[in-house]
């Protein structure tokens, strides 16, 4: 295996730039992040990219690989470079800082806009909340809570590309998990926050987020849940 090489095209520059081509030795069980790291350490020290844990926990290393957003640390070359070539770009829908590193500010700013943070209702004096694993709301929350904030869904989403103020799948998925948390006290305000012109109603249900989420979450289903919840709240006069 090690005698073979793979042709890798990597984006260099900011919004304006060009692809540079590298020849990288093939290794067994090689990941896209291994390739990028090899290039940076051996061929081109000036290459900028972002990673931290290398084991699919931190959500730092997402890039566009052969046209699709992927978590590069757990994307094996064998699965994405069938024809022996690899084209690596920064994530779509976010400003490029340099090379493969994007500015995630908008992505996280939209989590704040969606009020996607827990609003506690209990005090230190209260006992622990009893939430059964079989509770339907708990199941809905459990289905969405493993998000690692990698930005793959945000990059995959056409609605984000078309509608600049759309909150995006990750922020809305987080809003849905909180909506199903019985301990949370921010539901009405949150439903209001996610119903503006860039809110959950803007989702076209293309399901690119579902298809490409590395954690196999289904933000489209979460957004559908939010649409139903907002209608119920509006009909009750809560929004």
């Amino acid at each position: 295996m090690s005698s073979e090489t793979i042709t890798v095209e990597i984006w260099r520059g900011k919004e304006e730039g060009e692809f540079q081509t590298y020849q990288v030795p093939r290794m067994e069980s090689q990941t896209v992040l291994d390739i990028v790291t090899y290039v940076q350490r051996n061929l081109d020290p000036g290459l900028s990219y972002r990673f931290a844990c290398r084991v699919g926990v931190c959500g730092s290393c997402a890039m566009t690989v052969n046209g699709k957003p992927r978590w590069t640390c757990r994307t094996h070359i064998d699965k994405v470079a069938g024809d022996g070539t690899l084209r690596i770009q920064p994530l779509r829908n976010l400003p490029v800082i340099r090379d493969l590193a994007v500015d995630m500010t908008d992505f996280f700013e939209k989590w704040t806009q969606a009020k996607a943070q827990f609003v506690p209702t209990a005090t230190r004096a209260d006992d622990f909340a009893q939430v059964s694993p079989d509770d339907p709301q708990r199941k809905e929350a459990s289905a969405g809570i493993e998000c690692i904030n990698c930005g793959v869904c945000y990059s995959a989403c056409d609605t984000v590309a078309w509608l600049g103020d759309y909150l995006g799948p990750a922020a809305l998925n987080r809003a849905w998990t909180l909506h199903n948390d019985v301990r949370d006290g921010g539901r009405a305000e949150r439903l209001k926050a996610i119903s503006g012109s860039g809110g959950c109603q803007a989702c076209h249900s293309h399901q690119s987020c579902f298809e490409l989420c590395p954690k196999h979450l289904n933000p489209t289903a979460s957004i559908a849940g939010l649409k139903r919840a907002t209608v119920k709240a509006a009909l009750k006069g809560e929004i």
Partner: protein
Amino acid sequence: MTSARAEILEWLVQRVTAAILAVCVIVHLAVIVIAVQGGVTSKEIVARVGGSVPWLLFYSVFVVSVALHAPVGLRNILREYTSFGRRTTHWIMAAVCVLILVMGFRAVIGLYGLGA
């Protein structure tokens, strides 16, 4: 009404009218398929629809549903493909709604009147 509330209700109206239109379009297409069997003439159309209260009601529901459904979708397209502001797209929505209502009811009432 808050913009969030308006957004939700517009979304709901679009979904409800979509369900109504699904039935209306099927009936409309079925009638066309059946009607063309004997050759379509204006006389035959007027004989069926003209003066008929059930058809008047059916096509009235059809027109109202289209007038509510289409502007919301058009507004979404304008938001995604143009830089028009919220106020502009709302006025375009209102204008398209009125246009569809006027044109639709002109046809519906006109046909009903021909058989009355």
